[in-house]
């Protein structure tokens, strides 16, 4: 077991779908409190890698460590409870529930009350409910959605839904937040606001952030380190400046054979 100050450390991680090597022997780490970008052409295996981290897929080979503790093999809810939360490429809110309820669901792993508590409603169950609500509302304030808390999530604008997803993920009190194409479909102004929000999450809430993003302005603008995947393999890793000058990366994106 590796011992280092990496919050997330994947060792020779692979995921095969039949003959397709979606992720192939990738070594990957994220340092505490950094903002890291993950890029690559479509189908490079970025989202598959996320799904491996969150336990949605089981690796075909390799191991994943979170805070020096092995998490590969655990169920998604167990990994969430350890402090890893994510948003999705295609927005996956509970569209028929209110904005506030959506954030409360994100808080699920941080509250203890079960069925017994719900029926008996002891003082501590009530206190816990009130607390969860306060946290949820302060998170909605953080992302600027507090005045929409009673609306159905499905009625929010696209950019608002993205921000709600971020609030919901933050409700789980993660140490590491995975953002899957957070800027997809946003207009330039919304994108700028999103970049500010991501920086604030790191600076004010002390979180580590790993994001997949196609918008190079976003990735290069806020990431301290960037990793590049192509055909399931990691082909480069470094600062945004290094990546922008890397020939393999340029070839991968422009399709020129080396």
């Amino acid at each position: 077991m590796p011992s280092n100050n990496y919050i997330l450390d994947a060792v020779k991680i692979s995921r095969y779908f039949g003959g397709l090597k979606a992720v192939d022997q990738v070594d990957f780490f994220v340092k505490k409190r950094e903002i890291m970008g993950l890029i690559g052409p479509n189908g490079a295996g970025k989202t598959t890698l996320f799904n491996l981290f969150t336990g949605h897929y089981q690796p075909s080979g390799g191991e994943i460590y979170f805070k020096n503790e092995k998490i590969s093999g655990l169920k998604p809810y167990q990994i969430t409870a350890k402090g890893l939360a994510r948003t999705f490429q295609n927005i996956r809110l509970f569209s028929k529930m209110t904005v506030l309820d959506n954030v409360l669901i994100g808080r699920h792993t941080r509250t203890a009350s079960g069925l017994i508590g719900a029926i008996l409603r002891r003082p501590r169950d009530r206190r816990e409910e009130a607390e969860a609500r306060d946290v949820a509302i302060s998170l909605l304030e953080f992302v600027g959605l507090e005045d929409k808390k009673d609306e159905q999530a499905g009625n929010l604008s696209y950019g608002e839904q993205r921000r709600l997803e971020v609030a919901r993920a933050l409700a789980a009190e993660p140490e590491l937040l995975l953002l899957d194409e957070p800027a997809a479909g946003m207009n330039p102004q919304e994108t700028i606001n999103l970049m500010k929000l991501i920086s604030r999450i790191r600076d004010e809430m002390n979180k580590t952030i790993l994001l997949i993003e196609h918008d190079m302005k976003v990735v290069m603008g806020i990431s301290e380190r960037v990793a590049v995947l192509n055909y399931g393999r990691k082909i480069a890793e470094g600062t945004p400046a290094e990546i922008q000058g890397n020939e393999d990366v340029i070839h991968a994106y422009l399709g020129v054979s080396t």
Partner: protein
Amino acid sequence: MFLQQLINGLVLGSTYALIALGYTMVYGIIELINFAHGEIYMFGAFVGMILVTVYQFPFFLAFFIAMALASLLGITVEFLAYRPLRRSTRLAALISAIGASIFLQNLALLIMGARPYTFPSPFAPMVYKTSLVTISRVELIILIVSFLLMLGLTFLIQKTKIGIAMRATAQDKDTASLMGININKVITITFAVGSALGAAAGVMVGIYFRTVTPMMGLMPGLKGFVAAVLGGIGSIPGAMLGGLLLGVAEVMGAAYISSQYRDAVAFAILIIVLLFKPSGLIGKSLQVKV
């Protein structure tokens, strides 16, 4: 006369509503028609009857114990008969449900015998009369207890953490599990709550008709299912409304047409609903997931 029949219909309908809630909650979460639900109702009635007659328990204590034990039975049925089939076709689970239903009926026949047991009413046979309607104490208790249980359930679903988890699971299991919700636990709790409500209906019908038999769950089980479909399966307010409407329709049919058409009315309603509004009165229209 009409008002009196309306009261009778609401009393019967409130028990259908409680049964329908069990069907609709389970369907909402795992899209399974739990045909063993009628047997849970029968089990609840037997537990209540035995505790009151043999062990001389006070009625409401027996009532709550019956609900608790029925929860355990519901969880067990889910664990043994449905969970292993979670990833198979829906038809396999449905057949397993029918099998569980027949098994439980016959188990009860084996243990208790085929003869009906009397469930003496624990309440003095008092009636409250006004110029328009007469209502017995048992009927009044059924109405009040059903109403309180439905109110409690609504609160549970809408306001508590576990209720929010249930709604989230019903809407999108994958995302719910990524939010840290343990889906298996939510399913277990859903069966527990649904079964407790079914058992509550069983005990109350037991003291209403004063009879308990191993086959008593069959017809009310089907009626509860009809009520759930009528309201819109998967919808909790739908199950409540569907149960009350079905009870009233049945009693009115018996009073104004012929009491022999009682069951025919219920199933005619099922056919009509399925033909003209398959999503039910307040059910969401069927959506295709992309």
